[in-house]
């Protein structure tokens, strides 16, 4: 005999469906009302025409697009180079800070001081110090290129952040894992490489991607050293026309880069959560 839901259950389900329909209706209504009010308030504002002309001019969006896009190409190149170097440096710093050997004490100390200083210093200050201070020394092998010096500054600052993130990941791995690794006959560094780090990095992947997105936007700050990135290109266009639309173009381009990264982060997190639930690690 097939399953027959009870009368009570059918009633309960019907009530649930009604409630759900009702809340959908209310959500739609409230969205429409709030949307209408916002539209009326914004478009009805006395200065709306001027704001529209200043910020949403199709003419300036089109004319500034190629300049802003070529600026964005610089952002992208800086992001890729700095991103890779930051991950390597961050990992080294995290390894140094979580080491226990007495021989490595000075390295540990240096890594701690480095993290304290560069996590605290505003990026802009690091950029000015590295970008104008270093070449000011007059040492011939120090590069004078704004892009190289800017990337160095980004690496200095972000390695400190990323180092701390990875360290948190390493410390979150249960010490029993390390002991288990040793018990299996793995050496100290083999345990680190094959047991601890894979787990540590998996734990902090979303946080690392967060830093990557942040790095992507901060890559534009190197423009204070003279390089022309997307925002600076927009600023140049804006200064010529007194129209803010180029900034919006740059903003749209940045968002179009960030959204896929964010979605990717979400997807990765979800996947890990599901995997953990299946493994009973939740």
């Amino acid at each position, binding site marked *: 005999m097939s399953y027959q839901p009870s009368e009570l259950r059918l009633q309960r389900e019907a009530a649930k469906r009604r409630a759900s329909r009702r809340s959908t209706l209310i959500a739609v209504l409230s969205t429409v009302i709030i949307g209408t009010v916002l539209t009326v308030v914004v478009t009805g504002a006395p200065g709306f025409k001027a704001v529209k002309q200043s910020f949403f001019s199709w003419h300036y969006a089109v004319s500034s697009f190629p300049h802003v896009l070529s600026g964005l190409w610089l952002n992208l190149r800086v992001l890729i180079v700095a991103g890779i170097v930051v991950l390597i440096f961050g990992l080294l710093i995290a390894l140094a800070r979580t080491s226990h050997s007495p021989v490595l004490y000075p390295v540990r100390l240096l890594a701690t001081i480095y993290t304290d200083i560069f996590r605290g210093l505003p990026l802009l200050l690091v950029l000015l110090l590295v970008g104008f201070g270093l070449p000011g020394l007059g040492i011939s092998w120090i590069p004078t290129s704004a892009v190289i010096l800017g990337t160095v500054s980004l690496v200095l600052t972000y390695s400190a952040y990323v180092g701390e993130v990875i360290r948190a990941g390493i410390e979150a791995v249960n010490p029993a894992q390390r002991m288990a690794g040793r018990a299996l006959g793995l050496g100290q560094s083999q345990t680190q490489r094959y047991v601890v780090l894979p787990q540590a990095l998996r734990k902090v992947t979303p946080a690392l991607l967060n830093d990557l997105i942040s790095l992507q936007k901060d890559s534009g700050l190197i423009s204070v050293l003279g390089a022309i990135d997307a925002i600076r290109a927009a600023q140049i266009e804006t200064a010529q*026309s007194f129209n803010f639309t180029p900034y919006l173009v740059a903003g749209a381009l940045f968002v179009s880069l960030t959204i896929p990264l964010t979605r990717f982060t979400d997807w990765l997190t979800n996947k890990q959560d599901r995997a953990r639930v299946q493994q009973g690690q939740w």
Partner: protein
Amino acid sequence: MKKTLSASLSVAALVGSLTLGFGANPSSAATSGAALPTLTKGFLTIGTDNPAYTPWFDSNKPANGKGFESAVAYAVAKQLGFPASKVKWVVAPFNTVIQPGKKAFDFDINEVSITPERAKAVDFSTGYYDVAQALVTTTKSKIAKAKSIADLANAKLGASVGSTSYSTINDVIKPKSKASVFDTNDLATAALKNGQIDGLVLDLPTAFYVAGAELTNGLIVGQFAPKAGSDQFGLVLTKGSTLTKSVSAAVDALRANGTLKALAAKWLASVGGAPVLK
């Protein structure tokens, strides 16, 4: 410093509006300035950025009447019927000067070049200064001995953002490597000192100041001949401001009676000294 200044100004504003309340007489409008529809009735509010650079201003104090633009601002105010005591200064960064809508000043004076494109977003007075662009470098730079624009083809040049100087690099000099763009002339000068750029394009009066006062071994390579009347500094007003006509008339009067020329001679280095690069 700034606070005390604005506090005393607002006290002055209060006193001023009280006294003016009685004697207001439409026929004396041309001489008192009180009848002009200014931001604060009876006062003229003038904007400029902070820091305000020499030789356009002096010691970053627009209200001291020293420096070319400060002097011009007070001359325009006087022409409009506002004595120095009825002039208020506000800090107006570049973005607030170009933003849409009502602005926090009656007019802004900050080395802003007049272009037809910009005039779609703001009102300009007639020009109060014809400006030429010049190239500054140091004696040890590879372009120190350049004699023509062709000699600059391989130079790495810099300018500050939003300046006509940047357009001069791209449209007139056209060097092979991309120009560096800095937030301020100070940062650009620092880059020049470090040898990060070979030369820096500035407006001519600023170029004389940077080469003479800020760089130890600075020199002016030359200036670039402007197309006649093509680059003029103008006062910036809100788009469609009711004051634009009166302010322009005041500037015109100051040009006609020789005041602008005299002030330029007093505050700006003689600009004839730099060779014209072709």
